[in-house]
């Protein structure tokens, strides 16, 4: 028996999407920071080619990604205590959020704003293609999953609108 009242049907679906999407975004940013900045040292903290708008975008996304990771997990805990977690829908949304942010990072931040490159090697194009193709695949896979999963997977079927 859930300790909290059920959400209205439309909000329940939106909340699953929002929570998943925020988690995907936060997770990609976290991997970017720990793996590519700290462990591999491929990314640079700052390279002298960065534009001012690139710095602003990095600052905003860096601060927002911590918020996204944390609030999405609290939203997930909330969905679970209401027994309204639609797992496939949430995972699909997470893939979409991850893909969308990685595409933004790979195309806009790395290339357009020249925040920093993926790796400081001559054949950077290979890295860029793999990076952005992987992002696009995540985005598409997420969209397909969301379309194929019934919106009310774990919810009350009678509440379907």
């Amino acid at each position, binding site marked *: 028996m859930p300790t*909290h*009242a*059920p*959400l209205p049907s439309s909000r329940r679906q939106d909340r699953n999407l929002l929570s998943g999407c925020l988690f995907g975004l936060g997770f990609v940013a976290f991997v970017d920071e720990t793996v590519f900045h700290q462990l591999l040292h491929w990314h640079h*903290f*700052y390279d*002298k080619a*960065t534009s001012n708008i690139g*710095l*602003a975008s*990095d*600052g*905003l996304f*860096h*601060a*927002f990604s*911590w*918020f996204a990771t*944390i*609030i999405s997990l*609290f939203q997930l*805990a*909330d969905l679970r205590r209401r027994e309204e977690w639609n797992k496939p829908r949430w995972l699909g949304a997470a893939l979409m959020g991850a893909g969308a942010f990685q595409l933004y990072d790979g195309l806009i931040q790395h290339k357009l704003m020249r925040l920093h490159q993926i790796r400081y090697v001559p054949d950077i194009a290979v890295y860029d293609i793999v990076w952005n193709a992987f992002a696009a695949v995540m985005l598409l896979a997420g969209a397909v999953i969301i379309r194929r999963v019934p919106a009310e997977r774990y919810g009350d079927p009678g509440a379907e609108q």
Partner: protein
Amino acid sequence: MITSPTDATASLHHHAQSTSAVHVAQVSLMLAIAYFLLSFAYAALVLAANRKYAKPWPASRSLCWHAGMTLAAGSCVSPLIFQGSNGFARHMVAHLLLGMFVPLLLVYAAPVTLLLRSLPAPVARSFMRLLKRPVMRIIVHPAVGAIVNVGSMWTLYRTSLYAAMHELPVLYATVHVHFPAAGYLFTASVLRHDRWMHDWGFCNRIFWLIISMAGHGILSKGLFASPPAGVPADQAEFAARMMYYGGDVVEITLILILCYQRYHAPDRLKQSSVTSA
């Protein structure tokens, strides 16, 4: 004596006997003593409050206050103890402690609540009236705290103030009192631990927290690229990273507290008649 900013910081780092270093040493000691006196003042107020109320003032709050004051005093005298080569990194550690960690501790020490409890009833009543004035609503808006905090950081590092404060003892003291105070205002308005504060809502508080942390991060990377006058590039690069990631630790802590508060708030769907006030 007026020297160029480059001379001022260079002398600070290399010649302990120069006038600016002596100023800094004297002011640092005075600041540390002032923070210790504030610790005694808090303890005196706790005694007064405990005489008036049967329920004793929580020891955890006292602990937060004394820890905060010890940290503040410690970061003020740290330049005297650690005379390493990287003066700017040392300053940055003190700045992170004074501007972010100390305020977090002070918020949980609830000094305003303690004042209300320990002051004589008529004085406490007029103090409460003061806190309930419309202008206080504006002052405790998270936007005000965020703008004051980020604005003063940019002023300190992006004007000649950083070099000037090592020459003028008054400026040095002001900066080292202003940052904990401004940090307290912002942290208190974001966490709203004190119930007398106007509730500007979760979205407002989280939004201004993100904006303020973004401003902090952007400034850190800016300092990495172009350090304040007189700070060598290698010192600035190390200190900028520390500022960037140290800021993250505090941001994560604040977001966790905010989300935790929201998660445990009464279920609005179940008890729609109960308001947060």
